[in-house]
């Protein structure tokens, strides 16, 4: 192994034009036994800082990473193949288990793709309920990001605080949907059941408290010298890089691109809500942190507006009335022969029109899309899940190579992915 001289330049950007590296640690001294030696290191798949079963094959020179290769697939459960054998309707519980910190967002993305294929419109109340639950899920997912990234970088107490608030969200989701996690609450054409309006007080109390809680976390982190040094100028993405590497969501917005599918391609009535799209300026880990924190505030704003709409649409239909695709209400199933037959047909033999459709929602990780292809029979031809997390994992080498090993922990946290969705 030939020796190579490394410049001490923290905050450098990795590979230089002449093929050498910057951003490295000081080289090991010439009398160090490891001088000039490249060490192979496996980070994961059981490393707590890799946020799931991600394996990173690292080539280390001293403490700087020369080569990074993400190895995914440890959690591959064949979701897309499963959809082909289960059929459209019975795949909903499996979407929960993709990005398992935001099951309702996955449910909605899948339902919207199927509704696009079927040409089905969701009643307003159904859309409002979906928006409310999607925004609460987004806050819950960002709380996981904030808590776990902070604990990885040494700020342990933030973790308890964010998980306490996440617990409050799960209490609300439990009261609304009947489950804390893996809700399977969304159906083709709307949602499974109307929400319990008695929960509104719980949500209002949470939304009233959240901004102050976020301020508290920001006081602990945003101006914190350690947090700033560990995140600022680490993992800088340019706008062009983010686009070419198919990055979306907060990772793209951190580079200054105000692209949010809720604004650019509104679905579920998002055009009627008043909210801002926060963007970063530098595109580093710190910007991505700021973007996500501000997104939580904006999500709380949207959720507050959705509560108002929930009040004005009280008693209205929450499920489309189209017995080709939409399940009949449960009380009618128990009392009417026809509805029982419809229920049976839809559960066992749901047929969507032949053709293909793609629908993407703005999930907490980026553009979560479902590409569904049907041939008119009850067996799906293809259900491709466009997972934003996979693209976030792919970008790790781009940002990590040439940097210190300790930056990897900040990078993994700030790129934000959940392996259930990456591996599908």
């Amino acid at each position, binding site marked *: 192994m030939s020796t190579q001289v490394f410049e001490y330049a923290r905050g450098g950007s990795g590979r230089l034009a002449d093929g050498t590296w910057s951003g490295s640690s000081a080289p090991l001294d010439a009398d160090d036994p490891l001088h000039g030696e490249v060490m192979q290191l496996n980070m994961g798949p059981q490393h707590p800082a890799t946020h799931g079963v991600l394996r990173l094959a690292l080539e280390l020179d001293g403490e700087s990473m020369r080569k990074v290769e993400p190895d995914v697939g440890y959690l591959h459960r064949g979701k897309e*193949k499963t959809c082909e054998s289960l059929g459209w309707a019975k795949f909903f519980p499996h979407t929960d288990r993709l990005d398992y910190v935001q099951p309702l967002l996955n449910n909605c993305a899948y339902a919207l793709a199927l509704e696009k294929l079927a040409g089905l419109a969701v009643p307003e109340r159904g859309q409002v309920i979906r928006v409310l639950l999607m925004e609460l899920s987004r806050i819950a997912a960002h709380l996981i990001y904030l808590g776990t990234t902070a604990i990885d970088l040494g700020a342990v107490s933030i973790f308890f605080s964010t998980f306490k608030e996440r617990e409050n969200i799960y209490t609300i989701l439990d009261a609304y949907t009947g489950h804390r996690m893996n809700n399977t609450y969304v159906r083709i054409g709307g949602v499974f059941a109307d929400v319990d309006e008695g929960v509104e007080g719980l949500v209002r109390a949470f939304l009233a408290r959240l901004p102050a809680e976020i301020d508290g976390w920001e006081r602990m982190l945003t101006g914190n010298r350690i947090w700033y040094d560990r995140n600022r100028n680490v993992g800088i993405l340019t706008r062009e890089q983010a686009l070419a*590497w*198919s990055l979306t969501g907060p990772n793209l917005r951190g580079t200054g691109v105000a692209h949010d599918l809720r*604004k650019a391609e509104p679905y579920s009535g998002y055009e009627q809500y008043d909210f801002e799209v926060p963007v970063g300026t530098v595109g580093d880990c710190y910007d991505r942190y700021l973007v996500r924190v501000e997104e939580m505030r904006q999500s709380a704003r949207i959720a507050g507006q959705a509560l108002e709409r929930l009040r004005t649409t009280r008693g209205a239909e929450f499920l489309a009335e189209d017995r080709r695709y939409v399940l009949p209400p449960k009380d009618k199933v128990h009392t009417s022969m026809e509805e029982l037959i419809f229920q049976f047909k839809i559960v066992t033999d749901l047929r969507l029109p032949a053709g293909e459709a793609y629908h993407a929602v703005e999930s907490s990780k980026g553009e979560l899309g479902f*590409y569904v292809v049907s041939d008119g029979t009850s067996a799906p031809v293809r259900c491709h899940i*466009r997972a934003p997390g996979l693209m976030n994992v792919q970008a790790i080498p781009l940002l990590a190579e040439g940097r210190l090993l300790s930056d990897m922990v900040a990078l993994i946290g700030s790129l934000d992915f959940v392996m259930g969705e990456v591996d599908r």
Partner: protein
Amino acid sequence: MAGTSEPNATVARVDVALQGIEHAWLATRDGLATLSVAVAQLGAALAALKGAGFESATLVTAVDRLPRAPRFELVHQLHSLAHGARVRVKCTLAEGQEAPTCTHLWPGAAFMERECFDLFGIVFAGHAGLKRLLMPEGYEHHPLRKDFPHHGIEPDRLYREWDQQRRADWHPEGAR
């Protein structure tokens, strides 16, 4: 940021970009501008679309239409944020037929093409490091093909081989 532009505007923009490349527009349920090209012209078409401002590859995937021949449909979906436009490019592939890579245009497509190779067995010519993404190294099948059964083919073969090797390594004299 501009909203979604009209499908017709996207079609007109793509038609200009793809001058000299034979392509046909397809009707889809979702109204997303979708065109088909021959696989021989796929590389040129994708390069022209990149030049026309489609700066991001949203997905690269395939559909197995087994009783049909050629069996595979290769799907590239591209996104232009500046124009708020999406376009889907489809081409058909027979089994064993190679497709050109688009990783030199969009590096983000590298994992998507690896996934496509892994699950469908489609080879992308020119892809540096085309290997399995989700299934383990040494696995011999392509699970998303329609002739692959859902319950799997020898799902535990790799584990059994590993286990036998491990036992042989630990107990060379065959004590257990």
